[in-house]
Protein backbone atom coordinates (compact mmCIF):
# COMPACT_ATOMS: atom_id res chain seq x y z
CA UNK A 1 0.00 0.00 0.00
CA UNK A 2 1.65 3.22 -1.08
CA UNK A 3 0.26 6.68 -0.72
CA UNK A 4 0.90 9.73 -2.81
CA UNK A 5 0.68 13.28 -1.64
CA UNK A 6 -1.98 14.94 -3.77
CA UNK A 7 -3.21 18.49 -4.00
CA UNK A 8 -6.31 18.74 -1.81
CA UNK A 9 -7.54 21.52 -4.08
CA UNK A 10 -7.71 19.22 -7.10
CA UNK A 11 -10.77 16.99 -7.26
CA UNK A 12 -9.45 14.78 -10.11
CA UNK A 13 -6.18 14.14 -8.24
CA UNK A 14 -8.08 13.10 -5.09
CA UNK A 15 -10.46 10.93 -7.10
CA UNK A 16 -7.57 9.09 -8.79
CA UNK A 17 -5.84 8.56 -5.44
CA UNK A 18 -9.06 7.22 -3.89
CA UNK A 19 -9.68 4.96 -6.91
CA UNK A 20 -6.22 3.47 -6.53
CA UNK A 21 -6.94 2.42 -2.95
CA UNK A 22 -10.31 0.78 -3.58
CA UNK A 23 -8.40 -2.52 -3.70
CA UNK A 24 -7.08 -2.04 -0.15
CA UNK A 25 -10.51 -1.09 1.14
CA UNK A 26 -12.29 -4.09 -0.33
CA UNK A 27 -9.48 -6.40 0.79
CA UNK A 28 -10.40 -5.66 4.42
CA UNK A 29 -14.00 -6.61 3.54
CA UNK A 30 -12.71 -10.01 2.40
CA UNK A 31 -12.73 -9.47 -1.37
CA UNK A 32 -9.92 -10.56 -3.68
CA UNK A 33 -9.23 -8.21 -6.55
CA UNK A 34 -9.72 -9.74 -9.98
CA UNK A 35 -7.38 -8.40 -12.63
CA UNK A 36 -9.09 -9.98 -15.62
CA UNK A 37 -10.20 -6.65 -17.11
CA UNK A 38 -6.85 -4.94 -16.77
CA UNK A 39 -5.06 -8.10 -17.97
CA UNK A 40 -7.22 -8.23 -21.11
CA UNK A 41 -6.56 -4.56 -21.79
CA UNK A 42 -2.84 -5.01 -21.25
CA UNK A 43 -2.70 -7.98 -23.64
CA UNK A 44 -4.61 -6.04 -26.32
CA UNK A 45 -2.48 -2.94 -25.81
CA UNK A 46 0.81 -4.83 -25.94
CA UNK A 47 -0.20 -6.74 -29.05
CA UNK A 48 -1.06 -3.53 -30.89
CA UNK A 49 2.32 -2.06 -29.91
CA UNK A 50 3.96 -5.28 -31.13
CA UNK A 51 2.11 -4.97 -34.45
CA UNK A 52 3.32 -1.39 -34.88
CA UNK A 53 6.84 -2.63 -34.10
CA UNK A 54 6.41 -5.29 -36.76
CA UNK A 55 5.41 -2.59 -39.28
CA UNK A 56 8.57 -0.67 -38.43
CA UNK A 57 10.70 -3.81 -38.76
CA UNK A 58 9.12 -4.58 -42.17
CA UNK A 59 9.79 -1.02 -43.30
CA UNK A 60 13.49 -1.38 -42.43
CA UNK A 61 13.78 -4.90 -43.83
CA UNK A 62 12.20 -4.16 -47.22
CA UNK A 63 13.52 -0.55 -47.31
CA UNK A 64 9.91 0.67 -47.66
CA UNK A 65 9.84 -0.48 -51.31
CA UNK A 66 6.19 -0.43 -52.43
CA UNK A 67 6.98 -2.17 -55.75
CA UNK A 68 7.72 -5.31 -53.69
CA UNK A 69 4.41 -7.22 -53.50
CA UNK A 70 5.46 -9.35 -50.51
CA UNK A 71 6.23 -6.23 -48.47
CA UNK A 72 2.90 -4.62 -49.35
CA UNK A 73 0.91 -7.74 -48.47
CA UNK A 74 2.71 -8.20 -45.12
CA UNK A 75 2.14 -4.53 -44.38
CA UNK A 76 -1.56 -4.78 -45.29
CA UNK A 77 -1.91 -7.74 -42.93
CA UNK A 78 -0.18 -5.88 -40.10
CA UNK A 79 -2.23 -2.70 -40.60
CA UNK A 80 -5.54 -4.57 -40.75
CA UNK A 81 -4.75 -6.62 -37.62
CA UNK A 82 -3.64 -3.46 -35.78
CA UNK A 83 -6.96 -1.75 -36.43
CA UNK A 84 -8.90 -4.90 -35.50
CA UNK A 85 -7.03 -5.10 -32.17
CA UNK A 86 -7.66 -1.39 -31.54
CA UNK A 87 -11.35 -1.80 -32.33
CA UNK A 88 -11.64 -4.75 -29.94
CA UNK A 89 -9.85 -2.72 -27.25
CA UNK A 90 -12.21 0.21 -27.81
CA UNK A 91 -15.30 -2.03 -27.63
CA UNK A 92 -13.95 -3.75 -24.53
CA UNK A 93 -13.40 -0.44 -22.71
CA UNK A 94 -16.72 0.96 -23.83
CA UNK A 95 -19.10 -2.01 -23.52
CA UNK A 96 -17.49 -4.61 -21.25
CA UNK A 97 -15.44 -2.66 -18.75
CA UNK A 98 -17.74 0.40 -18.76
CA UNK A 99 -15.60 2.41 -16.35
CA UNK A 100 -15.25 -0.30 -13.67
CA UNK A 101 -12.64 0.89 -11.18
CA UNK A 102 -12.53 -2.25 -9.08
CA UNK A 103 -13.58 -5.80 -9.70
CA UNK A 104 -13.39 -8.35 -6.91
CA UNK A 105 -14.71 -11.69 -5.75
CA UNK A 106 -15.53 -13.21 -2.37
CA UNK A 107 -16.42 -16.93 -2.43
CA UNK A 108 -19.07 -16.95 -5.16
CA UNK A 109 -20.01 -13.29 -4.93
CA UNK A 110 -18.61 -10.79 -7.36
CA UNK A 111 -18.50 -7.04 -6.89
CA UNK A 112 -17.91 -4.22 -9.37
CA UNK A 113 -17.26 -0.64 -8.31
CA UNK A 114 -17.76 2.47 -10.46
CA UNK A 115 -16.72 5.87 -9.23
CA UNK A 116 -17.13 9.37 -10.57
CA UNK A 117 -17.27 13.03 -9.69
CA UNK A 118 -19.74 15.32 -11.40
CA UNK A 119 -17.17 17.91 -12.42
CA UNK A 120 -13.67 18.89 -11.43
CA UNK A 121 -15.05 21.41 -8.96
CA UNK A 122 -17.50 19.08 -7.23
CA UNK A 123 -15.81 17.10 -4.44
CA UNK A 124 -18.68 14.63 -4.06
CA UNK A 125 -17.32 11.18 -4.84
CA UNK A 126 -20.13 9.05 -6.29
CA UNK A 127 -19.73 5.33 -5.72
CA UNK A 128 -21.87 2.73 -7.45
CA UNK A 129 -21.58 -0.87 -6.29
CA UNK A 130 -22.85 -3.84 -8.22
CA UNK A 131 -23.14 -6.87 -5.99
CA UNK A 132 -24.72 -9.97 -7.56
CA UNK A 133 -26.86 -7.93 -9.91
CA UNK A 134 -28.06 -5.42 -7.33
CA UNK A 135 -26.95 -1.81 -7.62
CA UNK A 136 -26.24 0.36 -4.60
CA UNK A 137 -25.23 3.99 -4.68
CA UNK A 138 -23.60 6.33 -2.21
CA UNK A 139 -21.80 9.65 -2.17
CA UNK A 140 -18.81 10.53 0.00
CA UNK A 141 -17.31 14.04 0.04
CA UNK A 142 -13.66 13.62 -0.93
CA UNK A 143 -12.53 16.23 1.57
CA UNK A 144 -13.55 13.89 4.40
CA UNK A 145 -11.13 11.24 3.11
CA UNK A 146 -7.97 13.32 2.98
CA UNK A 147 -5.68 14.75 5.63
CA UNK A 148 -4.68 18.39 5.41
CA UNK A 149 -1.22 17.41 4.13
CA UNK A 150 -2.70 15.75 1.03
CA UNK A 151 -2.45 12.10 2.03
CA UNK A 152 -5.42 9.73 1.88
CA UNK A 153 -6.76 8.61 5.22
CA UNK A 154 -7.18 4.92 4.52
CA UNK A 155 -8.96 4.39 7.87
CA UNK A 156 -11.60 7.00 7.09
CA UNK A 157 -12.04 5.53 3.60
CA UNK A 158 -12.32 1.99 4.98
CA UNK A 159 -14.85 2.90 7.67
CA UNK A 160 -17.06 4.80 5.21
CA UNK A 161 -17.05 2.00 2.64
CA UNK A 162 -17.45 -0.73 5.26
CA UNK A 163 -20.44 1.06 6.77
CA UNK A 164 -21.99 1.44 3.32
CA UNK A 165 -21.41 -2.19 2.28
CA UNK A 166 -22.63 -3.59 5.60
CA UNK A 167 -25.86 -1.61 5.29
CA UNK A 168 -27.00 -4.00 2.55
CA UNK A 169 -24.66 -6.99 2.76
CA UNK A 170 -25.24 -8.69 6.10
CA UNK A 171 -23.27 -11.85 5.31
CA UNK A 172 -19.74 -12.12 6.65
Amino acid at each position, binding site marked *: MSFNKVSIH*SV*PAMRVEADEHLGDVFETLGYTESFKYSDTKLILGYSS*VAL*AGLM*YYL*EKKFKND*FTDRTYVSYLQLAVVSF*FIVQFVLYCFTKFVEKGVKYHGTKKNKSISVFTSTKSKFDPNYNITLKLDGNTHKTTIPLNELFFDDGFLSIDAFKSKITGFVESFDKSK
Partner: protein
Amino acid sequence: MAMVVTSAFAIWKGLAVITNSPSPLVVVLSGSMEPAFQRGDILFLWNRETYVDVGDIVVYNAPQRSIPIVHRVVHQHVVEEPISKSKKSKTLETSKKTQYLLTKGDNNERDDLPLYGYGKNYLNREKEIIGNVKGYIPKVGYITILITENQYFKYAMFAALAISALFSQD
Protein backbone atom coordinates in the same frame (compact mmCIF):
# COMPACT_ATOMS: atom_id res chain seq x y z
CA MET B 1 2.24 7.67 -24.46
CA ALA B 2 3.39 4.55 -26.30
CA MET B 3 -0.19 4.16 -27.48
CA VAL B 4 -0.20 7.64 -29.05
CA VAL B 5 3.07 7.01 -30.92
CA THR B 6 2.08 3.55 -32.17
CA SER B 7 -1.40 4.72 -33.24
CA ALA B 8 0.07 7.63 -35.19
CA PHE B 9 2.54 5.28 -36.84
CA ALA B 10 -0.15 2.72 -37.68
CA ILE B 11 -2.46 5.40 -39.13
CA TRP B 12 0.44 6.58 -41.29
CA LYS B 13 1.08 3.01 -42.47
CA GLY B 14 -2.65 2.49 -43.02
CA LEU B 15 -2.75 5.57 -45.26
CA ALA B 16 0.31 4.27 -47.10
CA VAL B 17 -1.41 0.95 -47.73
CA ILE B 18 -4.65 2.60 -48.87
CA THR B 19 -2.93 5.01 -51.26
CA ASN B 20 -0.26 2.45 -52.24
CA SER B 21 2.34 5.15 -51.73
CA PRO B 22 5.33 4.80 -49.37
CA SER B 23 4.77 8.36 -48.22
CA PRO B 24 1.12 9.47 -48.64
CA LEU B 25 1.68 13.02 -47.32
CA VAL B 26 4.50 15.18 -48.61
CA VAL B 27 5.59 18.69 -47.69
CA VAL B 28 6.67 20.94 -50.55
CA LEU B 29 10.28 21.98 -49.88
CA SER B 30 11.09 24.20 -52.84
CA GLY B 31 9.48 26.96 -54.84
CA SER B 32 9.89 25.14 -58.14
CA MET B 33 6.14 24.58 -58.54
CA GLU B 34 5.03 28.15 -57.84
CA PRO B 35 2.42 29.50 -58.28
CA ALA B 36 0.66 26.12 -57.92
CA PHE B 37 2.36 25.12 -54.68
CA GLN B 38 4.34 27.21 -52.21
CA ARG B 39 6.97 26.04 -49.80
CA GLY B 40 5.26 24.40 -46.82
CA ASP B 41 2.12 23.14 -48.54
CA ILE B 42 1.07 19.61 -47.60
CA LEU B 43 0.16 17.37 -50.53
CA PHE B 44 -2.06 14.29 -50.52
CA LEU B 45 -0.85 11.56 -52.81
CA TRP B 46 -2.58 8.66 -54.55
CA ASN B 47 -0.62 5.96 -56.32
CA ARG B 48 -3.12 3.46 -57.72
CA GLU B 49 -3.38 4.49 -61.36
CA THR B 50 -1.41 2.33 -63.81
CA TYR B 51 -0.54 5.37 -65.91
CA VAL B 52 -0.36 9.05 -65.07
CA ASP B 53 -1.35 11.71 -67.59
CA VAL B 54 0.62 14.58 -69.02
CA GLY B 55 -0.25 17.60 -66.87
CA ASP B 56 -0.51 15.58 -63.64
CA ILE B 57 1.75 16.61 -60.81
CA VAL B 58 3.78 13.70 -59.48
CA VAL B 59 6.21 13.21 -56.60
CA TYR B 60 9.43 11.24 -57.02
CA ASN B 61 12.65 10.75 -55.14
CA ALA B 62 15.67 12.11 -56.96
CA PRO B 63 18.24 9.31 -57.21
CA GLN B 64 21.16 11.21 -55.72
CA ARG B 65 19.37 12.92 -52.87
CA SER B 66 16.65 11.52 -50.70
CA ILE B 67 14.29 14.49 -50.80
CA PRO B 68 10.96 14.17 -52.58
CA ILE B 69 10.54 16.34 -55.68
CA VAL B 70 7.09 17.58 -56.77
CA HIS B 71 6.94 18.36 -60.49
CA ARG B 72 4.54 18.23 -63.43
CA VAL B 73 4.61 15.54 -66.12
CA VAL B 74 5.38 17.12 -69.50
CA HIS B 75 6.03 14.04 -71.66
CA GLN B 76 5.13 10.41 -71.39
CA HIS B 77 5.51 7.29 -73.47
CA VAL B 78 4.54 3.68 -72.96
CA VAL B 79 6.99 0.97 -73.97
CA GLU B 80 6.19 -2.71 -74.31
CA GLU B 81 9.09 -4.58 -72.81
CA PRO B 82 9.65 -8.35 -72.65
CA ILE B 83 9.57 -9.80 -69.14
CA SER B 84 13.00 -11.15 -68.26
CA LYS B 85 13.06 -14.95 -68.04
CA SER B 86 15.12 -15.04 -64.86
CA LYS B 87 12.07 -14.12 -62.81
CA LYS B 88 9.50 -16.84 -62.29
CA SER B 89 6.24 -15.65 -63.71
CA LYS B 90 3.02 -17.62 -63.44
CA THR B 91 1.20 -15.55 -66.04
CA LEU B 92 1.47 -16.33 -69.71
CA GLU B 93 2.27 -12.75 -70.62
CA THR B 94 5.69 -12.39 -72.16
CA SER B 95 5.77 -8.62 -72.23
CA LYS B 96 4.53 -5.80 -70.07
CA LYS B 97 3.85 -2.16 -70.69
CA THR B 98 5.97 0.35 -68.85
CA GLN B 99 5.27 4.06 -68.78
CA TYR B 100 8.17 6.50 -68.81
CA LEU B 101 7.80 10.14 -67.81
CA LEU B 102 9.62 13.41 -68.20
CA THR B 103 8.89 16.04 -65.56
CA LYS B 104 9.44 19.76 -65.13
CA GLY B 105 8.81 22.28 -62.35
CA ASP B 106 6.31 24.98 -63.36
CA ASN B 107 8.65 27.65 -62.04
CA ASN B 108 11.80 26.16 -63.57
CA GLU B 109 13.29 27.21 -66.89
CA ARG B 110 14.13 23.70 -68.00
CA ASP B 111 12.97 20.10 -67.52
CA ASP B 112 14.29 17.74 -64.85
CA LEU B 113 16.78 15.81 -66.97
CA PRO B 114 19.80 16.92 -64.88
CA LEU B 115 18.06 15.69 -61.69
CA TYR B 116 17.66 12.13 -62.96
CA GLY B 117 21.35 11.35 -62.89
CA TYR B 118 23.87 10.52 -65.59
CA GLY B 119 22.57 8.42 -68.48
CA LYS B 120 18.96 8.45 -67.36
CA ASN B 121 16.44 10.16 -69.59
CA TYR B 122 13.07 9.22 -68.12
CA LEU B 123 11.40 8.22 -64.84
CA ASN B 124 9.83 4.79 -64.55
CA ARG B 125 6.18 5.25 -63.55
CA GLU B 126 5.95 2.03 -61.55
CA LYS B 127 9.31 2.10 -59.83
CA GLU B 128 10.13 5.71 -59.18
CA ILE B 129 6.89 7.64 -58.73
CA ILE B 130 5.76 7.96 -55.09
CA GLY B 131 2.36 9.33 -55.96
CA ASN B 132 0.11 11.59 -57.95
CA VAL B 133 -0.97 14.80 -56.19
CA LYS B 134 -4.72 14.78 -55.48
CA GLY B 135 -5.13 17.61 -52.99
CA TYR B 136 -3.28 20.01 -50.75
CA ILE B 137 -3.46 22.12 -47.61
CA PRO B 138 -1.56 25.39 -47.89
CA LYS B 139 1.10 26.45 -45.34
CA VAL B 140 0.43 23.77 -42.67
CA GLY B 141 3.58 21.84 -43.51
CA TYR B 142 5.73 24.89 -42.90
CA ILE B 143 6.15 23.75 -39.30
CA THR B 144 8.19 20.73 -40.42
CA ILE B 145 10.39 23.02 -42.53
CA LEU B 146 10.93 25.23 -39.47
CA ILE B 147 11.81 22.23 -37.31
CA THR B 148 14.30 20.78 -39.78
CA GLU B 149 15.89 24.03 -40.93
CA ASN B 150 15.90 26.20 -37.82
CA GLN B 151 17.52 24.71 -34.72
CA TYR B 152 16.27 27.51 -32.41
CA PHE B 153 12.68 26.84 -33.40
CA LYS B 154 13.15 23.24 -32.29
CA TYR B 155 14.29 24.34 -28.82
CA ALA B 156 11.52 26.93 -28.63
CA MET B 157 8.99 24.20 -29.36
CA PHE B 158 10.40 21.91 -26.66
CA ALA B 159 10.27 24.80 -24.21
CA ALA B 160 6.65 25.55 -25.11
CA LEU B 161 5.76 21.87 -24.65
CA ALA B 162 7.50 21.74 -21.27
CA ILE B 163 5.73 24.89 -20.08
CA SER B 164 2.33 23.67 -21.22
CA ALA B 165 2.97 20.34 -19.45
CA LEU B 166 3.68 22.24 -16.22
CA PHE B 167 0.45 24.22 -16.41
CA SER B 168 -1.92 21.55 -17.70
CA GLN B 169 -2.88 20.30 -14.24
CA ASP B 170 -6.06 18.33 -14.79
